[in-house]
C-alpha cells in the first residue's frame, strides 16, 4: 500500500466497495469486451443486490461500462448517460453461488462481440475478477493485465513469457485456468508496464492464441489523468 492509497482514492461516494469498486469492475469488463457495449445485462449478487441501490452501485457499474473511473463526477448521472449513449441495460438480482457478497456478473454485447465477466468488490475499492466467459480468472486491476485465451498445449506460457521478457516487461502475477485437458485455456498476466504494441500484435497472430485483451491498470485515479 502506498501513502496515496491511504489518503485516496479520490472517488465519487458513497462507498469504496459498492461504488468505487463496482465502477472498477465494470471498467475492466468493458476492456474485456474491447469496446463500449450496446447491450449489458447486470446480475447483482448478495449485498450488491440488497443494498446496491442506496450505494449507487447501478450508476457506478454503468459509468464503468461507459469508461468512467471512480472519480468521475458523471457517475451519479450514469443511467441517463447510458441511455443517451445507446447502451441498453438490464439489472437483475441473481444468486451467483459461493462468491464474495459484493459480486456482479456482466454480460456485455456489441454487435458480434460478446463477453461475460464476474468480479467481486473486496472492500476499500479493491476488486478481484473471478471469471471471464467459461474460465475461472484471478486478477485485480492493480496492474496492466494481459488476458489470453489459447489452446491448452505445452509451451504456451513459456512462449508468451518470452515475448514479454524481450520487451522488458516484468510479470507481477500469472494465473492460468483451462476448461479441460487439451481444450481452451485462459491466462491472465499482471505486469508492471504495458507491453509494446508490436508485442501485442505479435501475440494476437500466434496460431494457438484465439483471443487477447490488454486491460489498463484501473486502481489509481492519478495515473489516468496522465493517459
Amino acid at each position, binding site marked *: 500500500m502506498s501513502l496515496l492509497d491511504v*489518503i485516496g482514492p*479520490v*472517488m465519487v*461516494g*458513497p462507498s*469504496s466497495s459498492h*461504488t468505487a469498486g463496482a465502477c472498477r469492475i465494470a471498467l475492466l469488463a468493458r476492456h474485456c469486451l474491447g469496446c463500449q457495449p450496446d447491450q449489458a445485462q447486470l446480475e447483482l449478487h448478495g449485498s450488491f443486490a440488497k443494498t446496491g441501490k442506496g450505494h449507487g452501485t*447501478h450508476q457506478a457499474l454503468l459509468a464503468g461500462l461507459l469508461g468512467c473511473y471512480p472519480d468521475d463526477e458523471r457517475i451519479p448521472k450514469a443511467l441517463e448517460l447510458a441511455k443517451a449513449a445507446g447502451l441498453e441495460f438490464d439489472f437483475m438480482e441473481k444468486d451467483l453461488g459461493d462468491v464474495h457478497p459484493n459480486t456482479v456478473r456482466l454480460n456485455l454485447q456489441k454487435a458480434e462481440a460478446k463477453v461475460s465477466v464476474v468480479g467481486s468488490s473486496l*472492500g476499500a475499492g479493491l476488486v478481484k475478477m473471478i471469471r471471464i466467459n467459461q474460465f475461472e480468472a484471478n486478477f485485480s486491476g492493480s496492474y496492466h493485465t494481459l488476458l489470453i485465451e489459447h489452446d491448452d498445449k505445452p509451451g504456451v506460457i513459456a512462449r508468451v513469457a518470452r515475448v514479454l521478457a524481450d520487451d522488458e516487461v516484468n510479470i507481477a502475477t500469472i494465473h492460468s485456468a483451462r476448461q479441460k485437458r487439451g481444450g481452451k485455456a485462459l491466462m491472465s498476466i499482471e505486469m508492471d508496464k504495458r507491453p509494446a504494441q508490436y508485442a501485442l500484435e505479435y501475440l494476437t497472430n500466434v496460431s494457438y492464441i484465439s483471443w487477447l485483451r490488454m486491460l489498463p491498470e484501473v486502481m489509481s485515479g492519478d495515473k489516468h489523468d496522465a493517459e
Partner: protein
Amino acid sequence: MTLNELVDFSGLASEAILKEEFDTEAERDLAAQQMQKRIAEMRSSVERGLTSDKASITGMVGWNAKGLWEADDVLKAPLLKRVQAYAMAVNEENARMGRIVAAPTAGSAGTLPGALLGVADHLELSDEHLLNPMFLAAGIGKIIGQSMFIAGATGGCQAEIGSSAAMAAAAVCELLGGTAHMSVHAATMALMNTIGLVCDPVGGYVEVPCVSRNAFFSVHAVSSAQLALAGLESVIPPDEVVGAMASVGRMLPAELRETGEGGIAATPTGRRIALKMLGENTDM
C-alpha cells in the same frame, strides 16, 4: 516502520515517513504533487458540502453540515463548530454521490479534513502547511493497516473512524509544531479511545451514524492533539494499542461489522428504515 520506531525519531514525524517511503527526490516530488491535488479535492468537497442541503440517496442525511454551519455559534466555540461542520460536509457529499477523498475509507472521509482543514482555517494557516501533516496522516494509516485491515466490515468502526481519527490527530499535532513523539502519542490516544467502536450503519448505508460519527471523531482527533501538545502521553506504547485494536476487531461478531444487523442499525427505528429502503429496492 512501527509506531514505536516513529515515536523516537528526532526530526518531524512526517520526515521519517517520507524518508521511508521515497528513495528519490523525483518520486517524492511526484507524490507531493498528487497529495496537493488531494488537498484541493478535500477543500472542494468541504465547500460543496457546507452549501448543499440536497438529500442523500436514501434521504437519511444531507442537511446536517449546512444546518450546523449556518446555525448560531451559541457556545462561542468557532473551532469546534468549524471542525464538526467540515467533517459532516465531506461525509454528506459522500452520501449524495459527490466527489471526496477516501481517508482511509469513504465512510471516514470527513474526519481528516474536519480536523486538519478545520484547525488550519481557524488559525488562518495556508494550504502549504498541510502537505507534510497529510503525509504523516497517510503514514500513520499505513502503519495501522499493517496490523489490521482498515475497514468497518473487518475490524469495526474503530478500524475505520478510529484509524482516521488517529491519522488526523497526528496531522493536527504536527501542524501545530508537535514533535514526532507528540504526534505519535496524539494518534495513540485517539486510537485508544475508539477501541471497541462497532460498525453499525442503518440499513448498511454509510449515512447513520457515519455522518455524525465523522463530526465527533474529528473533534476527538483535535482533542488528542491538544493533549499530546501539552505533553500528555499514552501509558500503553503505541504499537500495543494498535495490537489491542486488532484483537478487539477479531472478537467483534459479524453483527457489529458493517452488516447492518447490530448496534444502531438493529434498533427498532433502524430496522424500520432498512425495511423501507429494501422495499424500494425490490422495484428497481
